[in-house]
């Protein structure tokens, strides 16, 4: 092992030490990582966890990866400017509503999935008292933020009664439906929840039943950015954020090394894109956030 510290490695045999959002665990660990090792002479080591939590640990120097891959740009901003000044968004993970096949509401949910009932009904169903909906904490998780805004967008779009958003979501950090990222799909799979927010990739990996959402509300299409932006959310600390695509953002941590740059290059390349696409991500041409000047030349589009 050894998370090769921040000095530049002279040889080509370094390790890409990647810290990534928990939802990227499968694709990184099982697919990208092995393929990367095979395609290059670098080694790969990955570690997953909550995007913000990982970012905070990197900031406190208790975690020293050389690549950080998060959902959204916000976690990367936590470690700016000391550890990096830029990020590249190259894919997005569509938001879906996963549900439990053992739920009371499974027949309706199946019908919505199969388009036998309109998607609008999903939101009236979720507003039913007694419907156990699970989502993650918007204060700490980009998915939680996106799900919240997705409901806002849908209610507006389908002209549902004014109180519907509140009936579905309740308060921002509604104790009845906000679960940890680590626990939420467990509860769904154990039948503890009727439905929950999830990424398409997660739903595929875990063979969950899910309802796909159109691109204007799945927060995965850069083309729909203006629609997403029309939704906004005030977090507990008073900051207001507006919607943006749930992009997969990647950056190096510390001085870029051959292994770390190599990993990002691989991921942005053809083989990486194919893997990501197959795993349920929408891949688009890379977009740079932050300081373009600091992006290693090998990665500049």
């Amino acid at each position, binding site marked *: 092992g050894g998370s090769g510290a921040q000095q530049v490695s002279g040889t080509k045999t370094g390790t890409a030490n990647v810290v990534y959002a928990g939802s990227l665990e499968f694709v990184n660990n099982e697919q990208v990582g092995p393929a990367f090792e095979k395609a290059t002479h670098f080694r790969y080591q990955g570690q997953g966890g*909550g995007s*913000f*939590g990982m970012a*905070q*640990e990197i*900031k*406190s120097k*208790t975690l020293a990866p050389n690549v950080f891959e998060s959902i959204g740009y916000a976690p990367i901003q*936590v470690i700016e400017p000391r550890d990096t000044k830029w990020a590249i968004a190259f894919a997005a993970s569509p938001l879906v509503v996963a549900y*439990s096949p*053992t739920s009371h509401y499974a027949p309706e949910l199946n019908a919505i999935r199969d388009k036998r009932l309109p998607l609008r009904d999903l939101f009236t169903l979720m507003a039913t008292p007694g419907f*156990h909906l699970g989502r993650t*904490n918007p*204060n*700490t*998780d980009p998915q939680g933020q996106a799900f919240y805004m997705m409901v806002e967008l849908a209610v507006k779009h389908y002209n549902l009664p004014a109180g519907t958003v509140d009936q579905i979501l309740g308060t921002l*950090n509604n*104790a*009845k*439906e*906000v*679960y*940890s990222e*680590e*626990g939420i799909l*467990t*509860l769904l*799979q*154990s*039948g*503890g*929840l009727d439905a929950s927010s999830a990424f398409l990739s997660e739903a595929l990996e875990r063979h969950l039943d899910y309802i796909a959402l159109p691109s204007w509300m799945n927060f995965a299409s850069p083309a729909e950015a203006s629609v997403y932006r029309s939704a906004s959310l005030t977090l507990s*600390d008073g900051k207001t954020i507006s919607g943006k695509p749930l992009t997969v953002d990647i950056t190096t941590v510390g001085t870029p090394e051959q292994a770390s740059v190599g990993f990002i290059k691989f991921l942005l390349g053809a083989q990486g894109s194919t893997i990501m696409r197959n795993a349920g991500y929408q891949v688009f041409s890379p977009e740079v956030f932050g300081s373009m000047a600091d992006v290693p030349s090998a990665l500049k589009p």
Partner: protein
Amino acid sequence: MRRLLGIWSGITLAVLFVPVVVLFLHAGSLEQTIRSTAGRNAIEVTLGSGIIALAVDLLFGIPLSWILARLVRPKWRRWWGTLLIIPLLMPPLVLGLVLAYVVGPASPIGSTISLANTFAGLVIAQIYESLPFFVLTAWGYLGAIPRSLEEDVWVLGKSPWQTFWFVTWPMARAGFAIAAAMAWARIVGAFGAPVVVAYHPSGLPVAIWIQLQEQGLPAALGLALWLIIVSLPLPVWLNWRFSHVRYDR
């Protein structure tokens, strides 16, 4: 020999205290942490649920350990010991995953009332993390109390029940106190199970986790220091009050 042992034990103690010292050095402002509503809530939740969980541990654990120590035939002891090791080995995270089935609406309990993300769910998670530790420790202590102490007063007309209170209980208390201290440590530190089934109401470990994500490590460690501070009095009191009854010359 004794000198060597002393030095070695000193080293052990030093090693044991490294994390505590590091925690002190790196924890953010204690004052600031406690000013946040989330922090105060978490302390209240942990103490409230923890005391209930500990009470349940005692209520279930004391009779069971007593029965095991007193009514189980010696030759069956090993079998019971083996049996009890199984729940002991359930790791917190696994407990959380498994409890998702138990407290969720799919379970016989859950179908009437879902306990996920409720105070009751948190208490259940804490109980499962701590009860096996309590029972095994308490059993061991009770088993070390010679049977003859009880016989000697039965033959003066005292019933087993009276004997328990006058003879066994005061000797066992020291053991129960240590068992309770360990159960308490498991309860207040319970993370693996609560993070799955009881993200809300957030007890301290989950709150520390959230704090880490929201505010970073120093703030999280500040809350961790609060965890140590608020959870210390109960076991210290137990240890102080029911410390070993020493009676040999």
